[in-house]
């Protein structure tokens, strides 16, 4: 597909005034915005996700809550976490839709050793390519949100794709389509941050949530799924959302610094022994048995002498 900007008009003959549409920019980064404050926990998004991705409804454990299962699974990518919280003497029910956050700096991708198993698109979607996955599970420990899940039958890891197949066709993700309250939005990153900020301000000024704010953690370069929370200072309350998510330094420092250094040292080691053999030479059992000479001895010695 050609770049849509190629056929944007640059100049027009005999046209008074500026060229229409000049200075327009195409927003490439997409974003899902989740307003936690208006979620009613209907789980329509969970069902839509399961339906669109053609997953069978899996077995679950009942743990005395409304939550469908304890955590997301390899074939259950979208899960509303229900948390009962006390606030000013009354019960407050926090419901947060949990799924892949599509980090700007994805820990799964940093940790992955398999060529082409995890890709990040220009629009910010992080997608797993199961045909290239080797099933090592490094992405699972690389993820700050505990999202990638292992399928023990196929030895492959799965997670939410942000419906990259739908987005590629100009459609919104299935969960967005199904949401009845409008707490889910999908659009460009810029627009979603804008809407989220407006909503947070509204919560602060009108609804009395002084700490309301937008969750778009900059410790991993921002995410392509953002939340508006009643209390941005305590994201952990919402089913364990980390306030300062980080990729384990082991994966970044080690992979980009220590690994090439290690390979270089291994290469140098091979060179070292090779040139040790060339210059210092072998340790022969003593006394060395010299090869029997076929030429006259003095003739050979004269010819072999190195220049001082």
């Amino acid at each position: 597909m050609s770049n849509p900007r190629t056929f944007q008009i640059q100049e027009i003959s005999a046209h008074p005034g500026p060229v229409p549409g000049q200075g327009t920019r195409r927003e490439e980064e997409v974003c899902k915005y989740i307003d936690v404050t208006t979620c009613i926990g209907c789980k329509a998004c969970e069902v839509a996700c399961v339906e669109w991705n053609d997953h069978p409804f899996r077995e679950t454990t009942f743990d005395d809550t409304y939550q469908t299962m304890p955590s997301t699974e390899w074939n259950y990518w979208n899960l509303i976490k229900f948390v009962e919280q006390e606030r000013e003497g009354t019960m407050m029910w926090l419901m947060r839709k949990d799924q892949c956050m599509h980090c700007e700096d994805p820990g799964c991708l940093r940790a992955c050793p398999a060529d082409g198993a995890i890709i990040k698109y220009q629009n910010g979607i992080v997608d797993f390519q199961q045909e290239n996955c080797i099933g090592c599970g490094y992405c699972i420990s690389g993820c700050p949100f505990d999202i990638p899940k292992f399928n023990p039958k196929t030895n492959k890891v799965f997670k939410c794709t942000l419906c990259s197949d739908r987005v590629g066709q100009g459609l919104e993700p299935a969960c967005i389509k199904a949401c009845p309250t409008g707490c889910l939005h999908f659009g460009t990153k810029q627009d979603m941050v804008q809407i989220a900020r407006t909503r947070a301000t509204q919560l602060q000024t009108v609804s009395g949530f002084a700490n309301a704010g937008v969750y778009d953690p900059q410790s991993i370069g921002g995410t392509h799924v953002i939340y508006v929370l009643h209390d941005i200072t305590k994201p952990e309350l919402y089913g364990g959302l980390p306030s300062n998510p980080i990729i384990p330094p082991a994966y970044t420092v080690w992979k980009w610094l220590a690994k090439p250094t290690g390979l270089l040292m291994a290469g140098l080691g091979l060179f070292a022994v090779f040139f040790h053999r060339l210059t210092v030479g072998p340790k022969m059992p003593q006394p060395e048995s010299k090869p029997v000479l076929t030429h006259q001895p003095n003739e050979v010695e004269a010819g072999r002498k190195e220049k001082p």
Partner: protein
Amino acid sequence: MSTSVERFDEEARRKFSRHGQTVVHRGELLRHPVYTRVLHWTVAISFILSLLSGFAIYSAWLFRWLTPLFGGGPMTRFLHPWFGLAFTIAFFFQFLNWFAPMHWKPADGRWMRRIRGYVSNKEKVEPKDVGFFNAGQKLYFWTIALTAVLFLITGLLLWFDHVVPRWLVAVSYVIHNLSALVMLAGFIIHIYEGTAAQPGTFQSMTDGTVTKEWAWTHHPAWYEEITGRDPRNDYELAREQQARQRETIGERVHETGERPSP
């Protein structure tokens, strides 16, 4: 512990020598019996398989080169822990086999202080106190023993990563790879010393024997222990004998212009 280890070793050696044998020719000494050789090559093969399959996952630059050797990425990932487990088990028996001769002795400290001269090949014949293994070999052995333990622990944590906390997996990942680099460095030196650097050494692990010259050159104290003779004295005798032979050969070449028949 050491007595039960010795008893176990004795028995293993006896059983293995029933199936295999070591031919010791005249002028040669038995260095490694069949049991030791079988163990050594089991360790070597499982180590090389672990190394290659591990390096495929270790670096993105090696992924496409090394995974085809094992039937693709998923198969490499599947096999690597099993290779590693085989290596650990084989090395455990080798550890028992060599536990006694690998004990660190005062002579090894002196050897380490001389290491510069050893590497630069200044001294043609090793000092008289160097026994069955020199300090370099002992150092390699204990390095492998330590890294093998680290490998096993971190390897198991990485293998069962779904029940291990995330930070522990990340830490294991670094320790596992660092152990690999330490082992690789030792491995390169080990292969070099065993083949190109010291002719006659490779034979000790294939045929099980070494020449007497090799023994008094590289491990004089062991030579003394096994033959009851003075290594330096025998070396001087051999040198004189060789000098005499050289003289007679030289005379004949001068007189006839022909190479003497061997």
